């Protein structure tokens, strides 16, 4: 029972320092990172140029689709208004994102440990997800009032479902061998979750979060349609109603930029978290 003398086999030496190779490795990594940042920018600019050219060439009316240049002008002119309306939506989207995804992760955890719960409630969750906001808007306002809470609730409800589906799959789709390992270690359900299922579900979770990056913003916008004075959603209604297409598009650009920022943040976190995942980094 006492500590054994250690007769180490000095067969392998492990990682060595090779500054030159390391420098090349880091340079390659930096290149990839920059590429990842610049390519969408380039593609975005190319799209804008095509759009602008299309609008000019086909003489498309501004109320159908305004030229990017017109949108840009409005964007600069109304910058302060756009920003003032961005904040409430950003806060709603972020809170909805957090609440919806946490709820989905919790419920999918329950599903994995309570197969009965899954079989009973998964189909019901699908059906509930189909209910349009306008059907439950009065109940929400009654319960939560007309403030941010109701909008957060709607954003949360809308981004809830895809995460539930993906996360349930990710938590279940575990390598049977690794599961046997945890069983041998007599890991508690909690430990199996923390050390195996959750880790294993991360690729699925990040996919879900990427989807939620835009659905939470959509949710906040749609949520504002149950009544708001400020916010991207309110501004969209205002601009649509007033046929102010350039303002409408400028507003949408702000909303899209919001979900783009969400997406980029999630991708960044994903890259740090899944660095062990060879397939992803390859």
């Amino acid at each position, binding site marked *: 029972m006492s500590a054994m003398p250690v007769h180490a086999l000095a067969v392998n030496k492990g990682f060595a320092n090779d500054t030159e190779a390391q420098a090349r490795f880091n340079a390659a990594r930096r290149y990839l990172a920059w590429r990842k940042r610049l390519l969408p920018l380039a593609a975005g600019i190319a799209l804008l140029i095509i759009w602008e050219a299309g609008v000019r060439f086909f003489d498309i009316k501004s109320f159908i689709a305004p030229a990017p240049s017109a949108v840009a002008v409005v964007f600069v002119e109304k910058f302060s208004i756009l920003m003032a309306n961005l904040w409430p939506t950003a806060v709603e989207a972020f809170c909805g994102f957090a609440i919806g995804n946490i709820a989905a992760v919790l419920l999918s955890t329950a599903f994995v440990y309570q197969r009965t719960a899954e079989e009973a409630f998964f189909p019901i969750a699908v059906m509930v997800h189909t209910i349009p906001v306008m059907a439950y808007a009065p109940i929400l306002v*009654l319960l939560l009032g007309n403030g941010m809470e109701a909008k957060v609730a709607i954003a949360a409800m809308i981004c809830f479902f895809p995460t539930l589906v993906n996360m349930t799959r990710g938590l279940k789709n575990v390598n049977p061998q690794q599961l046997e390992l945890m069983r041998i270690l007599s890991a508690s359900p909690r430990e199996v979750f923390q050390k195996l299922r959750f880790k294993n579900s991360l690729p699925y979770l990040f996919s879900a979060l990427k989807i939620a990056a835009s659905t939470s913003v959509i949710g906040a916008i749609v949520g504002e349609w149950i009544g708001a*004075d*400020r916010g991207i959603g309110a501004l969209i*209604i205002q601009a*649509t109603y007033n*046929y102010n297409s350039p303002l409408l598009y400028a507003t949408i650009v702000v909303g899209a930029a919001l979900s783009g920022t969400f997406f980029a943040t999630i991708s960044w976190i994903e890259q740090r978290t899944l660095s062990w995942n060879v397939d992803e980094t390859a």
Partner: protein
Amino acid sequence: TRGRTASGVQTINMQLSWLAGGNQLGEVVAKQLGYFEEAGIDLAIQPGGPNIDGVAVVASGRYEFGQVSSSTQVILASSQGIPVTSFAIGAQKHPYAYFSLPKNPVRKASDMIGKRIGVEVSGQNLLAAVLAKNSITEDQIQKVIIGSDLTPLASGQVDAIAGWETSTTALRVLGPDFITMRLWDNGVQLYALPYYATHDALQSKQELLASFVRAAGKGWAYAHDNPEKAVDLLIKEYPNLVKEDEMLTAPIMLGFAFTDKTKFNGWGSFDPKVWQSQIDMFDTLGQLPAGKPSLDSVETTSILDATKNDRPKIG
């Protein structure tokens, strides 16, 4: 809902069916100029939007009263047994109209025959009413269901399209000389922007609602006299609005809020007979499947009566 505050000012919530804007010009002015405060009210305007029209919220007692866009909505809600009753109106004539372009004009109901008419899903009953009043059958026209925008007319997908005259900015799409065919002038006389509350509230909060009507009327009167200053106050409250647009809309809206009727009866007044004719019309058209509501359940003049002498008589 919050109660009376320390200073004796009581909060009262007005639930809209759409975003706040030029349709609430008078209320905003009254709010900004302290008319409500003077009346002991702290008015909170609760916006609505595409996903909610607020009737259920008011009917359930969450907010004290509300405003919808058309008198039809009050009638339909009453018909379904929702306990809401109109106690004042914001626009004496409904700004609902059919717009067309000069190259293919629709000036009166009979011009609609053989044309493609674009209406929203919810505008179908009004179209049916206009056609019925003018003895046109539905198959004499071609009804096109559209979304809530006027593009189909501009792009030639329809010959006439339904919308609100107060949507000045939207109408800009049609160019300067489009043709307007008003619902009101073609036999369908509806009110717009009715204020409504539950039966309960109309009894238990009668004084509060009366105070609101007095102060709001004062606000509308101020707007009538100082449209530009009123728009400035509106923009101050709702910075998302655009001053130029609101300056265009305000006179039109004021033109619907103050007519020869208000000259005698004061702002906000209505004629129960007009309500009754609306109820009868929709009933004849078979659009009240849940039953014909009684006039009493649809409107009450109790608030109007109580504020008879305090509402501005302009016209």
